[in-house]
């Protein structure tokens, strides 16, 4: 490297009278051209130090040394002191070290690709992984419930501080975004209702539409989906980083239970948070609807409220709210479990965070559909 400035010449490989004479700079900068020259020669001749003259070499770095190794072979390079004793000691040291390191090394085998088999194998792996995932989730839910049952009777082991911190992060900090989004969706639903119902001259039923939609479904669904995106991913990333940093192992070796210490406060905080956020979502969605009714349909706020009071029984509110703790439990458990599955690499943190958000949103919507069917059949 240091010699580069004194001999600014591109490296070449000269053939003179049956011998080989590398000249100029054999450095990384000239690697591609040198490699071509070496490969052309390598077809005609076995690697050997015979007739190779290294005296005229200018600069040499490890990349150049690797090419020289292809010319003379690794073992002769390790014994360079025998056949090129006149080279400077430092250069011999480099070539010798490289030769010693590379003696008896085969390039790693690359398996030929078999597209059909690989696709089948991958499909199989995916299906099995899906099954395994559900099994693990059920097992983890059981573990969380068991831990909850054991510490429920011992208030001394309740992690109140941790839970309040989680309440703050997952609940209070999410309040503005939940309120804003449900408000906007409330307005959109009212507009839709107004447009469709106008043809029947029944625009007044827009009030019922908005109230039904938000009390029974949208309040809880929107809040749950938001928390799935916002909090499940946060849980996975937090616990995943702890796992990668061996903090979870440290917790275990200190005789503590990670489920009790880390998972339960998160799960319980979520189960408290989501009903509150659902309530806020219902209110602000109905408010959005009321605003549209006032501005577009000339239904005054007083009229809106009196229709609410007259037409909407309490059980719709209870139906909506009753789903919140269940959704919260599943979102938190999925987020934490995916965090535990992280395996150290940055790639794996990304994969599991994605998986936790996708799974929790999927579970929320699936359960909501099942619940809608159930409540309808029950006539609630």
């Amino acid at each position: 490297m240091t010699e580069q400035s004194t001999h600014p010449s591109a490296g070449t490989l000269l053939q003179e009278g049956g011998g080989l004479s590398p000249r100029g700079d054999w450095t990384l900068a000239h690697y591609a051209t040198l490699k071509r020259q070496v490969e052309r020669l390598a077809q005609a001749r076995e690697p050997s130090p015979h007739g190779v003259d290294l005296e005229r070499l200018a600069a040499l770095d490890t990349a150049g040394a690797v090419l020289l190794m292809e010319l003379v072979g690794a073992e002769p390079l390790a014994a360079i002191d025998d056949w090129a004793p006149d080279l400077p000691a430092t250069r011999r040291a480099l070539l010798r070290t490289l030769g010693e390191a590379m003696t008896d090394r085969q390039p790693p085998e690359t398996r030929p690709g078999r597209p059909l088999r690989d696709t089948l194998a991958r499909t199989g792996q995916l299906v099995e992984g899906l099954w395994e995932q559900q099994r693990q989730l059920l097992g983890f839910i059981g573990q969380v419930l068991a831990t909850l049952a054991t510490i429920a009777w011992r208030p001394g082991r309740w992690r109140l501080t941790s839970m309040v911190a989680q309440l703050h992060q997952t609940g209070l900090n999410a309040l503005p975004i939940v309120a804003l989004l449900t408000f906007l969706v409330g307005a959109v639903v009212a507009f839709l209702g107004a447009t469709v119902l106008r043809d029947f001259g029944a625009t007044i039923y827009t009030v019922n539409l908005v109230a039904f939609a938000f009390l029974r479904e949208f309040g809880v669904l929107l809040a749950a989906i938001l928390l799935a995106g916002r909090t499940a991913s946060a849980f996975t990333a937090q616990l995943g980083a702890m796992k990668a940093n061996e903090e979870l192992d440290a917790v275990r070796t200190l005789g503590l239970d990670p489920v009790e210490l880390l998972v339960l406060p998160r799960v319980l905080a979520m189960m408290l948070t989501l009903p509150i956020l659902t309530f806020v979502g219902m209110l602000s969605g109905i408010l959005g609807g009321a605003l549209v009714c006032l501005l577009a349909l000339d239904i005054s706020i007083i009229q809106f409220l009196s229709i609410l009071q007259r037409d909407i029984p309490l059980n719709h509110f209870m139906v909506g709210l009753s789903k919140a703790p269940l959704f919260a439990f599943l979102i938190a458990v999925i987020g934490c479990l995916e965090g535990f599955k992280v395996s150290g690499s940055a790639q794996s943190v990304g994969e599991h965070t994605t998986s936790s958000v996708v799974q929790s949103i999927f579970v929320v919507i699936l359960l909501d559909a099942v619940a809608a069917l159930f409540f309808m059949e029950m006539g609630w």
Partner: protein
Amino acid sequence: MSTSREPLIRVRGLANRFGSHVVHEDLDLDLYPGEILGVVGGSGTGKSVLLRSIVGLLRPSAGSIEVFGEDLQSLPAQARSRLERRFGVLFQRGALFTSLTLQENVALPLIEHAGLSRADAEALARVKLALAGLPGEASVKYPAELSGGMIKRAALARALAMDPEVLFLDEPTAGLDPIGAAAFDRLILTLRDALGLSVFLVTHDLDTLYTACDRVAVLSRGRVLVADRLDVVEATDDAWIHDYFHGPRGRSAQRAAHSVEDP
């Protein structure tokens, strides 16, 4: 080492403060071409912070850092990137890319900067991994599958990928077994001799100091107390230096080094 030559890296009046916490105050340090400079100091004296300031990861609060005669902080991004390619950095915990195999880790700068084809870059990467003392089958493994010592070696291979002129090593032998650490020291010496590298070596390993370093800089109280040949540093009148070099570990490393020199 002769001090008459132009230094490769010239740090003048460096100050680093984090809030009210002062790490460096008016720190001067030179790194000369072809030397191995050991940087020692107690925990929390800012050895790693100094390294991060020099390689440009941390903007110092005050002072100038000249690298190859140019001020890294004031260079435009492109010129800076070209300059940074002449550095090789080995981080304390390896900092290998966890989503790439070892050979891909080492091949990455070769593909990006040297414009090599993937096959060429990976072949060259395997040689560098072998040079760093890793077995052949390790080159297709991921960092998560390796032991701490192997990660250190792979990180050295990546630091050497571009055949840098200056090698920054942050505690390279920490976490290696003594045999591995001694081999690591020898490897650094061989590479320095063969490639004319300059090495900035942050270390706690007294054996490394005695076997590999040409000069030693001692960091204490925010500045460089002394930066000179080991025998001069050892003789410096300072309580910390005395404890460091003349404590039980210092003495045994000293004896080992001397017994190698004159058998």
